[in-house]
């Protein structure tokens, strides 16, 4: 135990005496956490619309007004012809083109049937999908109001109507940062924890100071623990800073207990730091170690459900996510913070992450060899 105490003292001194580590460990993640959620916003609004109105009638004008008044669309320009509107899509000035044909009003009233044309820039599929859904909804509502004007409906509507009522639980204001901030906090903790751990042992190798440790009577397990504990404590401090920012800036107050978050984070950090140390025992240079860690963490983050939903993945990819510790942490953070899940709700995730922690750290201790 005395050995461990001295090792910890050494590690902490090294960390606190290097101002650049300190900067990276605290200032960078805090700045990131403040900026990233503002940027990571999937909400589709301000869709740029180009209108080709060949009718110039009262009806087409009302329809255009309804569309612009919905708040989803920004009317970018009136084009005279469809090819001209297409060019504003090519140049990214418009995302969506609405073409109102000649005799729109006349045909609607006389023939009782008329066609509108909508073309969307579908390179970004989700934007095109939502944009066209919104515009179709508006057109449908408009259609309904025209119909009401022209037909006298009987007092009891002859066609059966199903009224769909929505409620949005856990985030009724549809506030996007509520969803992203917990996830981004997880991502930052993972990047910082794993990379620092990955660089640490290999730095001693590269600078040659590992020789001194190798010839000293320090046990392997003490050495690994001596590396693990300081970063574990610092990461928990970063987590605390992150939770404070989430609360002060984004007003995110967890529905569940802070204690649940800390219990899970403590186990998770052991796993992710263990992974870093494991990479560190194998790597020869910092560049190598950093790159391998970066590569793994990037895959972990992409496959974690942070940016894209997991259930949309094909089955083989979903199987991969079971072996990804980040998936569990993101799930748990969102569940505890937004839905108020308790320890009993997340017991599967706890066991999974505990397994990772034992596996990575055990392997790291076994693979660290005092002979070079």
């Amino acid at each position, binding site marked *: 135990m005395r050995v461990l105490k001295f090792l910890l003292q050494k590690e902490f001194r090294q960390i606190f005496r290097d101002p650049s580590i300190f900067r990276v460990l605290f200032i960078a993640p805090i700045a990131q956490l403040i900026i990233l959620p503002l*940027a990571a916003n*999937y909400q589709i609004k301000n869709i740029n619309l180009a209108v080709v109105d060949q009718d110039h009638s009262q009806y087409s004008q009302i329809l255009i007004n309804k569309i612009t008044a919905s708040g989803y669309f920004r009317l970018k320009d009136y084009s005279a012809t469809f090819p001209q509107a297409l060019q504003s899509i090519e140049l990214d000035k418009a995302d969506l083109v609405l073409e109102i044909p000649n005799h729109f009003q006349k045909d609607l009233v006389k023939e*009782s049937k008329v066609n*509108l044309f909508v073309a969307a820039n579908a390179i970004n599929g989700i934007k095109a999908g939502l944009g066209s859904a919104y515009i179709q909804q508006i057109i449908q509502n408009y*259609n309904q109001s025209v119909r009401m004007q022209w037909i006298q409906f009987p007092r009891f509507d002859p066609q059966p109507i*199903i009224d769909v009522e929505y409620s949005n639980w*856990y985030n009724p204001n549809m506030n996007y940062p509520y969803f992203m901030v917990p996830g981004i906090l997880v991502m930052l903790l993972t990047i910082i924890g794993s990379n620092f751990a990955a660089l640490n042992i290999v730095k001693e190798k590269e600078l040659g100071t590992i020789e001194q440790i190798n010839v000293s009577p320090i046990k392997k397990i003490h050495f690994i623990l001596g590396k693990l504990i300081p970063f574990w404590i610092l990461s928990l401090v970063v987590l605390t800073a992150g939770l404070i920012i989430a609360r002060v800036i984004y007003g995110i107050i967890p529905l569940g207990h802070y204690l649940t978050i800390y219990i899970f984070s403590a186990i998770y950090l052991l796993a992710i730091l263990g992974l870093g140390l494991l990479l560190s025992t194998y790597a020869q240079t910092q560049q190598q170690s950093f790159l391998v860690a970066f590569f793994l963490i990037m895959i972990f983050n992409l496959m974690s459900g942070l940016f894209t939903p997991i259930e949309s993945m094909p089955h083989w990819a979903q199987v991969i996510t079971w072996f990804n510790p980040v998936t569990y942490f993101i799930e748990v953070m969102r569940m505890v913070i937004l839905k108020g899940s308790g320890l009993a709700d997340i017991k599967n995730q706890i066991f999974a992450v505990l397994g990772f922690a034992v596996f990575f750290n055990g392997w790291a201790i076994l693979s660290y060899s005092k002979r070079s």
Partner: protein
Amino acid sequence: MNQFFIFVKKEWLHIWRDRRTLFILIWMPIVQIILYGFALTNEVKNADVAVFNQSNDVATTTIINEINASRYFNVIKYLNSYNEIGSTFRQGKIRMAIVFPPNFQDNLLQKNYAQIQLIADASDPNTANTLTNYATAIIHDYQQSLNQNKDLPYTINTNLRMLYNPELKSAYSFVPGVMALVLMLVCAMMTSIAIVREKELGTMEVILVSPLKPFRIIIAKTIPYLFVSIFNIACILLLSVYVLNVPINGSLVLLVMESILFTITALAIGILISNAASTQQSAMFTSLLSLFLPTLLFSGFLFPIESMPWPLQIISNIVPAKWYYIIVESVMIKGLGFWAVWKETLILVVMTLVLLGISIRNFKIRLA
């Protein structure tokens, strides 16, 4: 000139002999393309839903079957009470709950009016919105099928056309994004680390006393990475055409030239970072936090830039990846020519010249 090539060769051997690093440099873009192409999608499908059905009649069963049959939903659970909805949500099992009130069919057929409640887990607002839209559409289709034989008067039909990407595949927006990400990573991050490494290990001193001009030293360091990136671009393009079926609609030569321009921009940033950093660790973290994340966020391939608050929209203009992304999208997917992207190209050229100018001026011939 001969000296110069010897330097390039030395740098190349550094990369070539570190097999693990080389392995990752080559596999990173390939794995990314495969993940983005096959595993990751913005689409919402196969969402698990629970049903609380208080009617159990033909109408409700039909609607539930229709919902279950669509590719967006999996009905995984039937609930017995309203309170169960909350606990199922808390266990993280479902994304949406559908509640049918009692006497659904009777109300629908006799009073011509019935209600359905959709409860979405809005902790993810986008998915909640999308799922509610899909479910509403399915329910409306069912309602429409009830009065099929009646032709509604005064109907406006909307003909919808999806341009460039009729199947709405995510790969179309991800491929240009991955290209920007990989080039930024390989060039900027790797060069900055390679240069700082020589500082940290002390071998920089040997190089600085050589008769080669500092400008050439830097160029020699970057050339091998330029070649690695060109190799990466080739891999990405081949994979996207032959594996993901994302076509190259425009000129391949233009696309490659623009990519090389962006590579040079990234190399210039790498040199700049290496000037400022004194240890490999700080070079790595500076590049990670100041390059990787902004490229991911501000290039516009994951998150729409126009939805961001205006200060961030302004910041996004200084991220080179944003301009490169626009160029690749226009040339590769929309098939446009140089006339459409000359402005973006000019911006990249100016950025590159400024960055190179600053980094060469600041390159210190003397170590502290």
